[in-house]
Each structure stands twice: as C-alpha cells, then as structure tokens.
C-alpha cells in the first residue's frame, strides 16, 4: 500500500516542479522538436554546423520570422493576415523608390527605412480598419488586400525588378554586428520586445482577452476594436522591418517574387509554435522556435539534396504534425 502511494506523491512533486518552470507543454514540444531537428541535421550533413551555413540559415529565418512575430499578435487577437507577403513587395518597392529619389546616400537610407515602417504601419491600418470598422472577416479583408498590394507593386514597377545604386543601403541587411548578421539581431531584438509586450504589459493581456472571448473583454471595459486594429498595425510594422532587411540584402526588389508565400511561412511558424489559430493564447518564443524549425528543415533538405519539389511536402507534414499534437493536448 505504501509503495503506490509513494510513487504517486513523487509524481505529484515532479509535476508541480514542472509547473513552476516558465515552460509548459505548449512551448516545450516545439523546443524539443527544434533540438531534435538540430541534432539530426548536424548528423545528416557535415556542412550544417558550418558557421557560414548557420549564419545563412539564421538570416533566411529572420525575414519570415520578423513577420511571424507580428502575425502572432494578429492571430492571438483572433484574426489572420494573409496580405503580409504582398505587403513585403509593395513596401520594398516604396523603399527603393524613395532611396533612388534622394541624392544624399545617408539621408536616403534613413528616410527609406522610416518610410518602410510608416508604409507597413499604414497598410496594416488599412487592413485593421476594414476588419474593425467595416466588420469584414480578417480572412476576407486580407485575402483582398493580398491581391491589391501585389497588384500595386506590379503596376508601379511594370513588373520589372527595381534596384538601387546607393552604396550604403546594402550594409543594413547584409551587414554584421559583433559577427552576427543584422537581420538576425533585429529578429531576436524584436522577439524580446514582443515577448515583453505580450506577457508583461496590460496591452498584451488585453490582446489575449480579446482573442479568447471578445464579449467578455468588452464587458471588462477593454476597447476590443482598438486592440484588434493595433495588432494589424503591429503586423504591418513588422512587415516594414522585414522588407528593409530583404531589399537591402539584395539591393533590389522583384515585385512579383518578393515575399511570395511569406504569409504561409509566417502562419506556419506561429502555428508550429503552439499559438492557437482560434486565438486567445500563444507565445512569441513559440513563434521564434517555429520559424527556426521551418528554416532548418529547408536548409537540411537543400543540403541533403532532396528534390526541391518535395520540400513543400515536408513543410506541410510538419505543420500538420504540430497541430495534431496541439489537439492531443487540448
């Protein structure tokens, strides 16, 4: 009799100990998956752990990762933003137009970056206003604006690639600081900020409340529409940052290819990271891990010479697996 009792209480202690950790199952599972993937990749290919390869993977991850962080807020508040990919192209075009019209190189770069963030925020505001004031479902609004933004980018450029001769701009996305690529620094810096915003400020709590139950939020005096609107603006600003990194890395932007399918990668990262698509709960760290998982899978498939046509299949499989595991927990 004493034996089973004993083991039970020990299990209880262990469980309590786990509960005290800031990590719970929702974030633990993607983390374990990431570590596993990392180990498997380093065994599968001798080039994987190569500093240059790692640095490249991280840089690649940053572009969609920055967007995924913004997407996390939108999804937690109960929305979705399908327009981010097209927005990258449109904002990218705007950046290069501004940089090319200003002669002073430093001024051009600074104003271009400012314009990117402003343009991203405004385009997000456009989405958000249609969702809150227009009372149209976020899916429909952003499906439409996805088409609109891409179309505008193509129209302005006649579908031709835009590039710049500005000598400084490429240092932003292509440069390093303390040996780390700048986009990677921006990605992690943004993640820390977003984490603080989501978990340590009333604003973040309100975002979760609105996504979990908008009615309760309204009765609790939370301005539901303002919160929803703000998440779209945050997503837009993140797109602006991502567009800066991407266009300056290439020193050019292709209105037809830039940001193509980024919305899917961003949503996938959020979902793999354990954020509920139905809204109400989620973590920024989960999204970061989700983005890293996607990036490493891509890289590993490339390194091991798997047919590029099969990469989508693997990515889709991982997304399904992540969601399946989430439902099991619920």
């Amino acid at each position, binding site marked *: 009799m004493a034996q089973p009792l004993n083991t*039970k209480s020990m299990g209880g202690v262990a469980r309590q100990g786990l*509960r005290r950790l800031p990590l719970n199952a929702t974030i633990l599972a993607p983390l374990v998956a990431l570590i596993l993937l990392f180990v498997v990749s380093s065994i599968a290919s001798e080039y994987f752990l190569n500093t240059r390869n790692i640095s490249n993977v991280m840089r690649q991850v940053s572009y969609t990762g920055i967007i995924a962080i913004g997407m996390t807020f939108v999804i937690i508040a109960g929305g979705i933003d399908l327009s981010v990919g097209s927005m990258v192209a449109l904002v990218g075009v705007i950046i290069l137009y501004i940089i090319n019209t200003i002669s002073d190189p430093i001024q051009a770069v600074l104003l271009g970056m400012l314009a990117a963030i402003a343009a991203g925020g405004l385009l997000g505001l456009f989405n958000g206003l249609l969702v809150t004031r227009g009372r149209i479902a976020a899916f429909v609004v952003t499906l439409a604006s996805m088409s609109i933004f891409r179309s505008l980018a193509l129209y302005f450029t006649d579908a031709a690639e835009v590039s710049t001769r500005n000598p400084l701009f490429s240092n932003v996305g292509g440069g390093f600081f303390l040996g780390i690529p700048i986009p990677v620094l921006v990605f992690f810096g943004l993640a820390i900020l977003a984490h*603080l915003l989501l*978990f*340590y*400020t*009333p604003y973040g*709590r309100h975002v*979760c*409340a609105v996504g*979990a*139950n908008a*009615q*309760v*939020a*309204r*009765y*609790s*005096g939370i*301005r539901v529409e303002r919160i929803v609107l703000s998440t779209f603006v945050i997503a837009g600003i993140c797109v602006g940052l991502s567009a800066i990194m991407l266009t300056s890395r290439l020193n050019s932007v292709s209105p037809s290819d830039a940001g193509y399918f980024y919305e899917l990668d961003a949503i996938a990262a959020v979902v793999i990271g354990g954020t509920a698509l139905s809204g*109400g*709960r989620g973590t920024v760290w989960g999204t970061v891990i989700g983005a890293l998982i996607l990036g490493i899978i891509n890289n590993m498939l490339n390194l091991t010479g798997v047919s590029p046509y099969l990469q989508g299949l693997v990515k889709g499989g991982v997304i399904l697996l992540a969601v399946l595991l989430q439902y099991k927990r619920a």
Partner: protein
Amino acid sequence: MSEPILRLEGIGKAFGPVQVLDDISFSVMPGEVIGILGENGAGKSTLLKIISGIYTPTVGTIYLNGQIFSALDPITARFHGVAMIPQEFNLIPTLRVYENVFLGQEVRRNGFLDHADMRKRTQELLSSLEVNLDPRLPIAQLSVAQKQMVEVARVLVNDARLLILDEPTTVLTDREVAVLFRVVRALVANGVTILFISHKLKEVKDLCDRLLILRDGKQVELCETKALNEEDMARKMVGRELSQIYPDKLPLDVTSAPPALQVRGLSLKGKLTDINLEVRRGEVLGLAGLVGAGRTEIAETIMGLRRKASGEVLIDGQAVDIRSPNEAHAHGLAYLSEDRQGKGLILSFNVMQNITALSLKRYVRGFIQHRAERRRAEHYQQRLAIKASNLAAPVSLLSGGNQQKVYFSKLLDIEPDILILDEPTRGIDISAKQQIYRLIRDLTEQNKAVIVISSELEEVIGMADRVLVIREGRIAVELNGDDINEEQIMLYAAGARQHVNCKRVGDYDGTTS
C-alpha cells in the same frame, strides 16, 4: 405493479484514482418523477451520463426495459427511449424551429425534405405542450423558455420513455417554470418517466414523487418526497447543519443615507421607459421581474454598455456620463453579468488573470508584476474559499460555484462602491450560494450599495431590503418591508396588478389586500 423502466444496481464510476460515484442502486417506474439532488460535484452529472450512455460505469449493472447492460452507449440508450435535455441547449440558432425538432431525423418524401409535414407535426407537438409558437421561426429569435420547449418537442418526436431534465429551471422565470411543470405533468400522465435535477428544493418538492440525494458520489437518501422537508433535503445534501441560508437583513433605516446611485428617467429604445431608481449605501435593492422584462438592460445601460435614449445617472448626487464599462469602473460601479461564461470570465485564462482583468493597472510597475497578481489571487482564494488546486490552471476547470467566486473577486478587485449583481447565484450549489449571500451582506456592511437582479423570488425576498418589480421595461412597483413576498412580486411582475401611480407599496396599510 409494472416492471421498472430503469434499474441501477451497484453502479460505480472512477476516473483514474478518483471515485466519483460509488454503489448507486435505485429503480424507476414508468410515469414516475424522481428528483436527483446534490451539490455541484456530488456526482449527479456523472450518473446522468451513465444513464444516457455517455460514460461507462466501472462497476454495476443497468437494467433498461428489462434488458441487462453492463454499460450503455448513446445509441442503445436512445433506442430504449432515454432522452436528455441538457443545461446548455443543443439547438442550431440559424435553423428554424421545425428544422431543429427534426434535426437528424428529417422526414423525406421521394428523397427530398418534406417541409410541410415536418411543420405540421411540429405544430401538433407544440400545441400538445400548450405552447404557442410558430414552427417557422428561427431559433435565434426565441426566448430561453421557448428554446427549452423546442428541446422538449424534439425529445417527443423520438418517443422518449425516460426523460432527463438537467436543471431545466435555472434559466426560467417562475411563470415559465409553471408552464414547464404543466408540460412535465402531462408527459407523466402519458407514462413518461422523468429524472429531474435541480438546485431549487421547492421545485423538487412540488414536482417529484421520490428523491435521490447524492453526496460525494454516494447515495445518502432514496425516499418519498413527502418524507422530507426542504431543510432536511438541504441538510442531507450538504451533510452538515445549514444555518440560515440568508443572512439577517439590516434594520431598515434606509431613508437616512443619501443615495449612492440614482437613475432618473432612463429610457432605452424599445426596451426601457422612464426608469427611476436609487440605491443607498448599506442597502440591497432587489430588481425582480420576468426574464425579458428589461432588468439586465437597466444594468447594462447604467454601465455604458448600451446607449441610452434619455435620462441621467447620478453617483453620490453628481450627474455622470458613462459611455463604457471603463468609465463606469472609474466611477466605482461594477457589474456582474448573468452570463458568467459568455460575458464574465475568460474561460481559457487562469484564476489570477481573470481576477485582475479589471484592475490590471494596479499590478503594473513598468511591467506587470506577476507575483503581486498571484498574491492577490491567493488573498481572494482564502477570503472567498475558492476551491482551486492551481491558480495557474484555466478557470474552465473550476466548478460553477468556484467560477462565480472568481467572478466576484474580479469585481471586488477594483474596490467598487456600487455593485450591480445580475443573477449572482445562477447554477451554483447551495453552500456556495450561502457564501455569496454572506458576501453580499458583508459588502453592504462595508457601506457599499448593492443591486441584486434575480429571477429566483426566494433570493430576492431573502436578500433585498427594497424591491423594484420591473415589467415590460417599466418599473411596476416598489415593495418595502413585509410586502416583499412572493405573491406581491408575482402579481406585479405578471401584470395582474398595476399600481395607480407606480409608487411605493408598504408605507401604509391597505394596498396589499
């Protein structure tokens, strides 16, 4: 005597190491009404789910219609005429009444739906229930009571022989309850057996032939209803002596204090006309009336959740313009909604996050101080005796009574001066109710003003120092002192009596005859 329709022998159910039901044995005759009583968590729902085939018992035997089962499944149970009307209705709001009644068993002719026949049969069923309802109405347009009648009709289509009613009266007014009881008695006359679950002892006493009382998963009593009075029932459910359920009212001295909240000439388009009320510090004002009379609308208009057409609200004599719950909170007003799960708590949030939902600003020093939040939640956990093993677990895991206490804590944490409590004890068990009544009195003793909106007459009578009866968006009468009784309230609520100038009753003799 005929065969019992249902007999349970030694039914037990354990979830892992937790024994939720233990050795339940009873039988039910056709045409009998059995009341099942017990506190929240006593095992009532588990028992019902075993009977309707959702759960498999760990031990024991079920005899249904003379056949032996070790466990039922939902299809077999339904085949043998077991039907359950759940607390939360399973109706599809976008479909019409008759479409819901025949959902899953649509009448077909030549492969196509036979709308005319289904409408006709629904009409017949509803008239047999003496319910006047157009089968073509969409469910979304019905009142709660009407929805319940649709559920009953749906069960009758299935030719149910054993009907389980799980707290059917929680959401009904007393008049609607009377209609429901008439329907139940008509069903019984046709030989249908009823299992009736309710927290309201008086109803159980009125309706049931026999009683089964559960406590902590055990059967503590099975007897004729006549054998027990309401107090005995409560005592057996709780397992200890229940002192008085309602705390003593304050000696009536309300005229001395100035009103904390005044409402003058409040109107809401299509809902409220010329509402005047005031509530003083230290008193409980009761708002009685039928469901749909406009009581909740009064509260929501005061809180700035609805845009008023005219009228003004004064707090401590100062006119205030409240346009959102935020502003109401800033003026010391707090509102407990009747819809705990839809408007009150965020079920996926934990206890702490729910408690600080209104008062979050107090916990911010640059960032949210999660530790201060936890300390505050622990404070309320102790003060209101909230049973929660883990403050970080979602509130959806708590029982109704404990959820309600969390909801109260959420309001108390902004230290309001005026509380509007809409159905403060809906769907919670008797000991939790008693604690909440005690809490309400404590609040008035701390010189707070409280408005209690309730459809339970007993509750209004037990708690309120003054009562306003609302009827069709107007104040029908104000009742004081001994005039606060069931008869008076019902007469005015149902419109059987109208007072000449809607003024106070009870100040002088002669109005109450």
